[in-house]
């Protein structure tokens, strides 16, 4: 089954990436946040790969990161400090929050990545001046990429980059359509492997597999009771152990669940919005895409535009409840959570809050999720 390839890539990201460099001789840049314009990197034939944590305990980041910064930024920096990414040709970040920026700056300062670029992605994306500002910053990025590659690019190259990323986004959205089914032929765990494996691989190699998966899903039937339909909303999350626990509860307990949609920067916030193709000014089109995409809450003000997207997902994917989660100390999400909970509950979607760390406390979390599922549907037979 092609779908298994996503998990294989997720679990073997370093093997794939080292092999890619060997096979192609190409340059590879690690990125820290989804506000990095991958279109421009593909235009240069440079491979952008996202750096996520490994969900393993570590003891190398304490001298570099303030204790009350989030576990995700530490886990990311730990990957660099432990030498797991020594094969990269450089690193980059698009400004989102200061926690992840600290991971980037520490990496840049201590690991000599060769090439690095800090992209000052505007925080006030609701300002009309954000698009021209960002386009100007992209022009500087292009100059910097010229020094990395020794190449110059044309609008046609940018259009090629846009097409690659749009194909990824369209394919992911088509796969997500299957999750709307009563018994989805793809689990939340598999969907998470699908989106994250694209971060780690060359989109041009990921796409044929994803298209094959689309075909497979047309006839695929999963021999499991989907249980309650859950949405996950919140901070960065690729916590497979947690998703796996939720989706296997039904095997041993009276209640079970399937994650049918998420609103995370590892999933829909990353891929849902496309870049306009074939315009007079492709660089401006890319800038417009990153300014208008579903924002990280660090940028979603003064209006909270994410809420509309979240409510639409809840309706379109017919969710029974939502787990609102936050990486411990993730301030942007922490500030948003009361509004997210309020909006969902007003729309009739019950919510439950969980605070995430590098590893999942599976036992304590399973009790909470199970009890939440019990509140979604009380068994009337249990009461006189």
């Amino acid at each position, binding site marked *: 089954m092609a779908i298994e390839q996503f998990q294989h890539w997720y679990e073997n990201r370093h093997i794939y990436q080292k092999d890619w460099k060997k096979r192609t001789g190409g340059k590879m840049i690690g990125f820290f946040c989804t506000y990095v314009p991958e279109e421009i990197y593909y235009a240069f034939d440079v491979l952008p790969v996202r750096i996520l944590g490994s969900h393993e305990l570590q003891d190398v980041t304490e001298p570099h990161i303030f204790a009350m910064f989030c576990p995700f930024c530490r886990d990311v920096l730990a990957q660099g400090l432990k030498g797991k990414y020594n094969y990269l040709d450089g690193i980059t970040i698009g400004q989102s929050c200061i926690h992840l920026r600290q991971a980037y700056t520490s990496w840049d300062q201590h690991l000599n990545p060769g090439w690095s670029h800090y992209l000052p992605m505007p925080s006030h994306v609701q300002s009309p001046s954000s698009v021209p500002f960002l386009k100007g910053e992209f022009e500087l990025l292009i100059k910097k990429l010229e020094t990395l590659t020794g190449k110059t690019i044309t609008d046609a190259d940018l259009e090629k980059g846009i097409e690659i990323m749009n194909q990824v986004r369209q394919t992911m959205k088509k796969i997500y359509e299957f999750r709307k089914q009563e018994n989805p032929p793809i689990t939340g765990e598999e969907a998470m492997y699908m989106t994250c494996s694209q971060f780690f691989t060359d989109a041009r190699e990921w796409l044929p597999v994803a298209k094959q998966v689309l075909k497979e899903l047309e006839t695929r039937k999963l021999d499991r009771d989907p249980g309650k339909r859950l949405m996950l909303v919140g901070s960065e999350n690729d916590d497979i152990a947690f998703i796996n626990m939720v989706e296997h509860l039904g095997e041993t307990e009276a209640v079970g669940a399937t994650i049918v949609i998420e609103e995370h920067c590892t999933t829909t916030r990353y891929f849902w919005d496309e870049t306009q193709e074939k315009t007079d000014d492709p660089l401006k089109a890319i800038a417009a895409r990153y300014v208008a995409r579903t924002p990280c809450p660090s940028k979603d003000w003064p209006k909270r535009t994410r809420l509309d997207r979240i409510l639409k997902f809840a309706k379109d994917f017919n969710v029974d409840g939502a787990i609102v989660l936050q990486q411990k100390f993730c301030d942007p999400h922490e500030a948003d959570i009361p509004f997210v909970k309020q909006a969902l509950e007003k729309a009739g979607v019950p919510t439950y809050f969980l605070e995430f760390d590098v590893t999942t406390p599976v036992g*304590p979390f399973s009790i909470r999720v199970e009890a939440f599922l019990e509140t979604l549907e009380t068994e009337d037979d249990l009461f006189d």
Partner: protein
Amino acid sequence: MTDKNNQELWRWTESNWANPDINFKKAKYITAGIDVGSVSSQAVVMADGEMLAYGNMRTGSDSPNSARNALNFALKELGADESIINYCIGTGYGRVNVPMADRTLTEIACHARGANYIYGSEVRTVLDVGGQDIKAIKCDEKGKVSNFLMNDKCAAGTGRGMEVFSDLVGVSINEVGDRSLDVEKEPEPVSSTCVVYAKTEATGLLRAGWSTEQVLAAYCRAMAGRIFELIEKIGIEKGFAVTGGMAKNRGVMERLMPMVKLDFMKTKWDTQLAGAAGAALFGNALCKKGKGRKK
């Protein structure tokens, strides 16, 4: 440390009981609820939804054995064996390891249902202070959960924290609450976010000349504050009941009461039994509806 009877100070008294007023042989359904918590295990046996017997013991390192021991402890007092039980529900942290359970339910559901039984149907907010977690639960007149919150990854303010403390100051856990109230002046509360820091602070207070009672007062007040944070978050409604071992600690409860600004409900039952009682009642309802054990 141990007391004069060689009993470790942190070790609370285990107990069992059988109802002399019920002839279980005449009951239609005998159901059991077994709540294997992180610190204590309870088995409640009910006859047609009425308390028939219970056993309340410390949880050992082995969940299946803890469940079996608690049930045998209850049945021993009744003079019966496991074969009388028509249906059994496992709950608590070790719920999946209750060997005789027909099914499991979370302790959240069971505590709400159990509080409804031991305190009455007026209960709307249940606070369960267990061995390693605190739960604040909202429920309806039937004991159905509508919302709940639990503390995160920290044992401060829980039963286990109190056990550690009783050992540190050398006072039996059964006396901690009363002795903490025997003070005229209290030091500031100790750390409410970490048992280990609280211990360090307490050692400092003892060295500074505060009496054992005063240090106990500082810890009980810190625990009350910690517990209050959680119930304040969920929103307190009239009909406030406390379950779990901490409900028996007057030192914490009497400091919590003015914060909650509500009268605590009273019960004749051991508050540690709520989870197991709720489980046994769910079993009784299932049997009555023909959803009991498949023969």
